[in-house]
Each structure stands twice: as C-alpha cells, then as structure tokens.
C-alpha cells in the first residue's frame, strides 16, 4: 500500500487527467443518488479545462474522485496514468486541490498553512519557508502572514487556498468553484492569477457556475448536468457548433401571450418562451429581429418596458442544451 508503483507511466505521453466511464452512486438506506453517470474526460498537459454545470451536476463529486477522496462506484480515474483507486498516495503527490469548502487549517497562521502544507509534501524546511514567503508575496498576502486564518475575509481565504495548493508545485491543479462567493474585484484578481498560472504551463481543472469565468479562462469546457457530459469543446466551438442562439428578452406591461404567438412566426426565430411578463426569444440571427419584435408589440398595443439582445454565449448554449436557466 505504501510506496510508488513499480511502473510509472511515461509522464510525457500520458494525459495528466483522464476519466473513463466514471460513475458515482451515493447510497443510503432510503435512497440512492447517481451523482456522476458514466463521465469520460481527458485533459491535456498544460491545458486549462473547465467543468461547467449547475448545482448538483456532479462537479464536486467528479473532482472528489479524481483527487482520491471519493471512491468511484464504477469506471476509472487516472492522474498521470495512475489509477486513483490503487495508487492514491502517488496520485496525491502530483495534485494540488482547492476544494469548494474552506479547508484552511484554522489552528495555524496564514504563513504556517503554507509552510506545513509544503512539509506534508516533503518540501525541505528551508525551501518550504521560501515557498511560503514567495507565494504570500505573489498572492498579495504578505501583510497577513501572521494572521490566524479565521480572521481572513472570504476573498483572502480563497486566495490562500490557491496559494496553498501550489506550494508543492503540483503537476495538476484542481479548483472547485474558486470564485464563488467572492466580490467582483477579488474575482477579477483571481482570474488574473489563474491566467498567469496557465501561461506558466499549469495543467488545471476548474469547475464553475460562472459562464464568464469559463469563457475567459478555459481552453476547453465540458458542460455537465445530472452527472453526464452534454457537450465538450472550446468556448468558441461550443457557441458555434451547438447553433447557439441570440437570446432576446422583452418585458411587457400587460399580457404577453399574443406577442409570444406572433413572435414564433417571425423569420429567424427558433423558439419562444414565456415567464410571467417576460418573453424569451431564441433567434438564429440578431439583425433585425429585436426591432421586428418591438414593432410587433407596438402593433398589438403592448407597451415594451424593457428589451435586450444577448449574443451567443455559453449561457445561451447552456439554455439550448438543458432547457434550464442558469442560477448562480
């Protein structure tokens, strides 16, 4: 059980992350939940890969399996060619993990969190000290080095979690919703840091709810829901190949049903949805449709309180794929 496996697959040829028909069923006496349902995944060396999905899609469970703390019910998960089930310790040596929950060590200071983490991974004392100082500097946390961890704000704690995951210079970095629950400024800050890491060649798997984030950071994205991958590709590919629509929303004073009926018949309109006063129109092109819709509403004697057009985005891709609205 202890020790490196005898055969270490060639690091150059193996994908850093691979999942084959990965499956996880949580069971209790009362019910079973299929959290991940036959997921295939392959992340290339140096790639910034995104898992995009709504609450309960199975993102954290997938990361849990890839990082050895959730035992797969079926299929295989491999890190640098090592099966997570049989070579857990060797896998752990190669990965850095930023969990969804704050897992900082509350009994230690900010600096100590980094130092002892390095020591767990066999980083020599002097080097661990150096890395701690270096990373605090890089993540603009130097001033807080001696603070106890529970005194940190959410944004700072999140930054420290990422810094900690990097102390031992892992081959693969896992980030489970690293920017949820932090303010826009901190978020942009974090995006810059993650961009820099990518630039430096860090292989990263990120999960997110945030479409902008996935669009901005990821080279490739898998959209998952109910434990299954619905689509895979670069943000651009996803937006193009899935025939993502321009989404036009109109808010109407009064009864929008007649407008919705008429809208469906307009050229370039693929689908129409209604939700209270809101009419959502999925159009295959943006030119002219919005104007036409407003014109139609006026001719029906309806007052348009608000109208907006959203060009194809991951958000519209997601809506097209799942018929579900994204809620952050």
């Amino acid at each position: 059980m202890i020790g490196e496996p005898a055969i270490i697959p060639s690091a150059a040829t193996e994908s850093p992350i691979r999942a084959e028909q990965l499956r996880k069923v949580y069971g209790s006496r009362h019910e079973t939940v299929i959290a991940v349902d036959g997921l295939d995944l392959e992340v290339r060396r140096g790639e910034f890969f995104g898992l995009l999905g709504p609450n309960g899609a199975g993102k954290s469970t997938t990361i849990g399996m890839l990082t050895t703390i959730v035992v797969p019910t079926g299929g295989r998960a491999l890190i640098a060619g090592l099966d997570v089930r049989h070579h857990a310790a060797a896998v752990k040596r190669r990965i850095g993990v930023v969990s969804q929950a704050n897992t900082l060590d509350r009994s230690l200071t900010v600096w100590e969190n980094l130092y002892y983490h390095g020591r767990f991974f066999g980083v020599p004392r002097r080097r661990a000290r150096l890395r701690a100082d270096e990373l605090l500097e890089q993540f603009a946390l130097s001033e807080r080095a001696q603070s106890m961890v529970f005194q940190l704000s959410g944004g700072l704690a999140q930054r420290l979690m990422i810094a900690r995951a990097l102390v031992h210079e892992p081959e693969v970095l896992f980030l489970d919703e690293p920017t949820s629950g932090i303010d826009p400024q901190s978020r942009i800050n974090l995006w810059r840091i993650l961009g820099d890491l990518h630039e430096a060649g860090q292989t990263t798997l990120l999960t997110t709810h945030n479409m902008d984030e996935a669009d901005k950071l990821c080279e490739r994205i898998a959209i998952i829901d109910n434990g299954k991958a619905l689509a895979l590709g670069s943000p651009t590919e996803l937006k193009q190949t899935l025939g993502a629509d321009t989404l036009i929303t109109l808010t109407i004073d009064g009864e929008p049903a007649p407008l919705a009926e008429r809208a469906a018949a307009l050229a370039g309109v693929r689908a129409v949805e209604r939700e209270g006063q809101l009419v959502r129109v999925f159009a295959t092109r943006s030119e002219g449709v919005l104007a036409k819709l407003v014109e139609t509403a006026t001719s029906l004697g309806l007052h348009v309180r608000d109208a907006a057009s959203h060009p194809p985005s991951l958000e519209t891709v997601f809506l097209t794929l799942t018929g579900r609205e994204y809620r952050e």
Partner: protein
Amino acid sequence: MSAEVGTFFALVARDLRVLRRQFGQFLVRTIMQPLLFVFVFAYVFPKIGQGFHGGSTGVSFTTVLVPGLIAVAINFQGIQAVALPLVQEFSFSKEIEDRVLAPVPVWVVGLEKIAVGAAQSLLAAGVVFPIVYLVHAHGAAPSLHIHDPLLFAIALVFACVLAAALGLFIGTVIDPRKIPLLFAVVVIPITFLGCVYYPWATLTPIPWLKVLVLLNPLVYMTEGLRASLTPELPHMPVWAFMLALVGGSTALTIVSLRTFTRRVVT
C-alpha cells in the same frame, strides 16, 4: 517509503505546533480535575475528619488515588486531544481535508493522530503525577514504589495508546451534534466506573458490577498502573490487564483507522 515517513513527521510537527500554541489550555484542562480531586479528598477530608480508605486498612486513600487519577488523566486527555478536534474538523469545517490529501495512505493520517494523542496522554500523566503525589494532608502521603520499571513503562505506554485510539474511534463515529452528550454518556461513566477510587478486587461484594466494569477500558489502565505503582494494593493479575491493554490498543487502533478512513473517504 522514506517519503511517507517524512510526511508522517510533518503531520506530527503540525500537531505539536498547535499544541505549543495552546499549551496553557492543555495545562489547565489537564490539571484542574485531579488537582481539585486530591485537594478535596487527600487534603480537606483528612483535615475535617472524613475518611476514605481504599478497601484495605492501613493504606491511605491517596495511595489508591494516585494510579487512578493518572489513568483518568491519560484517558481524558486521549479522548479530548483526538476526538474533539476531529469532531470540529468534520462538522463546521472540513479542514481535515488538507491532511487527508497529504501524499500518504489515509490510514497514516489516522495513525499520526493516535501517536500524537498518545504522546499528549503521556505528557498529561507526567503533569498530573507530581500533583497527585504531593498534594495531601500531613500523614496522608501515598506510598508508591515502582518495583518493575519495565512493567510500569509498558502499562503506561499502552494505556496512552488505548486512550488515543479510543479518542480516534469516538471522534470518527460520533455525530457532531451529539458532542454535548459525549461527556455525560461516555466520559463521566467511564471515569466513575473505572476503578479509579477503589481497586477492582474490592468490588467482590457486587459481583455484577465487578464483571460489568470489565467492559471499561479505563479499568485496565488503572489496574495496570496500580499493579506497577502500588503493588501492595490488590490488583488484577498482570496477564489480564496486559492482555487488555496491548490487545485492546491494537484492536481499537485497527478499528478506528477503518472508521477514520470511512469517514474521510466517501
């Protein structure tokens, strides 16, 4: 292999860092109970003419108490030092996760908890000993002598390991919301029925109790220390408490490493 050992000691270093930071707390929680106990029973009582004696006449009550209170300190510390932080880490924080992700099999992380817990128990025994030995009224001094240092050392060490393994077990199976019950339902009954204030042999008049308390791990810790510190008092045969201490430590270590692994890996 050596990498794993390095990780083990890094985990130990982390725990010792935390212990050093909370050392005052450690002392207070270790000292308070036995100090008050010997103060009331070994100082106040003799002074006001109340008396206890531990079954056999001619032996001061303090002689009965010394091994008992040391064993209580060991047991209490093991549970306190291992179980309580774990429960906290499982419930409102998941901070254990960083250590579970350290590059060793998960059971090594549990084993480290037992090792550090046992060391803390040993430290507690060392802190409590002078107190229970020295605090007493004039003429109520305990009479101790270690006739077999090896027996004493083995009993002491395994008592500490048993206590820490018990701590790991409790910490991994208890529902965090039930922690207030831990003391009422587990720690206090163990203490009062642990043959702390009376040697096990003196329970003969209550046969059912004499048998029932054999389920209590503290009994073997107390009797082990009694046999090696105050051999003139009646005590359990050496083979019996040795079997329980060594066998119990081993078994509970194995079981608690399983419950630990099951708790952190889903």
